[in-house]
């Protein structure tokens, strides 16, 4: 994990700094009064005048004590503070999406695999293909107009109502849920479709195995065959894929947070990238990747739980 993290910092740093142009250009180009000397002074202030490897060394030295530097934006706040206050909502949306993906894709996949070519299987196949072919941002727009504007059932932006503070504790939870319902459902759609398909394939594959025939021939009920013998084995590949879908989910938060004006990491990243806020971009890239690593690690641990054989190796 440590070498991976190290690699992430190097790649992120290179991507950001090999870009033509510098953040100081944006700050000074529009201002004819700024002299070349003042511009140089500004570059020196941000260490942009030093060679790349020195800049990286400086960054790494501070990173070792979890100091991500200060944002280049006018508020000049520490990067870590800005990210930490944006992180909970993004993590909440992603964890909720993962939960929805898991709880819906398993039954969908298993039921279609038990009766292939049934009406349910055909219906779910249609849903699956539509699911991973639909541009999420487009569906988001349509749903916003339908539920937010025409029907007025759900709020279309932010995470709290203006009068949020007046609500009771329960009312506050309802309020936030209403705000996050669409973003969570939308961001789970692609992976939900994908995982349902994978569950179906995995189940079909497993039910061809000899031990399933054995289970049937020793007189197990069909339910026991499917839910006891087959499902557990079918779960194995799913755990890995669920772990792999985390970077996609976190990346997708850029789109949904921008559309629904949710003050999360994705929105922060988009703003930082557009304004070339180097320390912020670097911070979000590294922390976002760190979250992915943690997700993958969790998937590995779960793998051990689902498959006892792993634990004995």
């Amino acid at each position, binding site marked *: 994990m440590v*070498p*991976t993290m190290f*690699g*992430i910092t190097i*790649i*992120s740093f290179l*991507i*950001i700094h*090999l*870009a*033509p142009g510098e953040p100081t250009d944006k700050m000074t180009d529009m201002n004819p009064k700024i002299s070349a000397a003042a511009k140089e002074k500004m570059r020196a202030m941000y260490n942009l005048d030093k060679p790349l490897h020195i800049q990286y060394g400086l960054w790494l030295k501070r990173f070792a004590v979890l100091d991500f530097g200060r944002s280049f934006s006018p508020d000049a706040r520490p990067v870590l503070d800005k990210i930490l206050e944006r992180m909970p909502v993004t993590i909440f949306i992603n964890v909720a999406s993962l939960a929805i993906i898991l709880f819906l894709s398993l039954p969908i996949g298993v039921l279609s695999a038990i009766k292939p070519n049934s009406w349910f299987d055909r219906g779910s196949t249609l849903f699956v*293909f*539509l699911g*991973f*072919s*639909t*541009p*999420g*941002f*487009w*569906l988001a*727009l*349509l749903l916003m*107009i339908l539920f937010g*504007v025409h029907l007025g059932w759900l709020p279309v932006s932010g995470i709290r109502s203006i009068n949020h503070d007046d609500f009771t504790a329960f009312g506050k939870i309802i309020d936030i849920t209403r705000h996050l319902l669409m973003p969570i459902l939308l961001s789970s759609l692609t992976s939900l479709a994908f995982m349902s398909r994978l569950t179906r394939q995995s189940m079909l594959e497993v039910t061809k195995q000899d031990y399933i025939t054995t289970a049937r021939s020793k007189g197990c009920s069909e339910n026991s065959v499917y839910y006891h013998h087959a499902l557990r084995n079918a779960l194995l590949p799913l755990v890995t894929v669920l772990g*792999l879908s985390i*970077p*996609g989910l*976190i*990346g*997708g938060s*850029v*789109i949904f947070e*921008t559309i629904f004006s949710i003050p999360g990491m994705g929105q922060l*990243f*988009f703003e930082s*990238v*557009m304004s*070339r806020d180097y320390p912020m*971009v670097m911070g*979000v*890239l590294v922390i*976002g*990747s760190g979250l*992915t*690593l943690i997700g*993958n690690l969790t998937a590995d641990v779960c793998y051990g739980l689902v498959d006892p054989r792993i634990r004995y190796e």
Partner: protein
Amino acid sequence: MSDNRKGSFWEIVFNRLKKDRFAVYGGGIVALLFFVALSAPVISPYDPGDVETSRLLEAPSMEHWLGTDELGRDVLSRMIYGSRISLMVGFIAVGLATFIGILVGAVSGYYGRWVDEAAMRFVDVMLTIPSFFLILAVITMLEPSIVNVMIVIGITGWMGVARLVRAEFLSLKERDFVAAARSIGQSDFMIIFRHILPNAMAPVLVSATLGIAGAILTESALSFLGIGVQPPTPSWGSILTEGKNYIEFAWWLSLFPGLAILITVLGYNLLGEALRDALDTRLN
């Protein structure tokens, strides 16, 4: 492929595809996309850049089948031209990703040892950075343009192919035909590209077809965020972006481009899925 019942491997695959509903629908959609994109100047009723200030934001009618946009341009014509972007992005971005992926995967799987170790660590790192973050970070390095969008999607999307190709190479390089090629003094280059690679192409083809679907979605998302294809070039994503400001009363600007993306991506997904079944030699 030692199937002497009915012709070559690819003939068998093609025969399987013909019988597959998914392949027929998917192939039909993709063929339609090709037709529309290639014949755009002939079939589009208006010039996509023609501004008609007297007919702003008109709802679909007999004259403008899919309505007009905020500058009075014909939406259908713009979407027909937009199909060219989707076609190009799909093929060029995925072509680039596949090329890099094959190169890295082949070298890594064939030579093994530290080359493999280093390449696979690099792949791990690239896969850990949230994909869309990576794309955004790279694209701001470059000026937003259609060419850059294709390059960025390509250089951030090769890792899956690399892993696939590597896995194929790991098992194929132990086969007798590789030993035979080596014993007659073939160079590594020839063994990798002439002898092993053709045998490793089936999974690459599947992943490339599904990759095109993903690339089209990514392009439209980037254009939607305003950092992809720049106006006045019509792309389905950018028509959507312009349309979202008027969505409350001009629904046609948002509905149709999205549907076009959905149908196109669906086509590639169906085709990819059908290819996966058809190429699966285990089902013989």
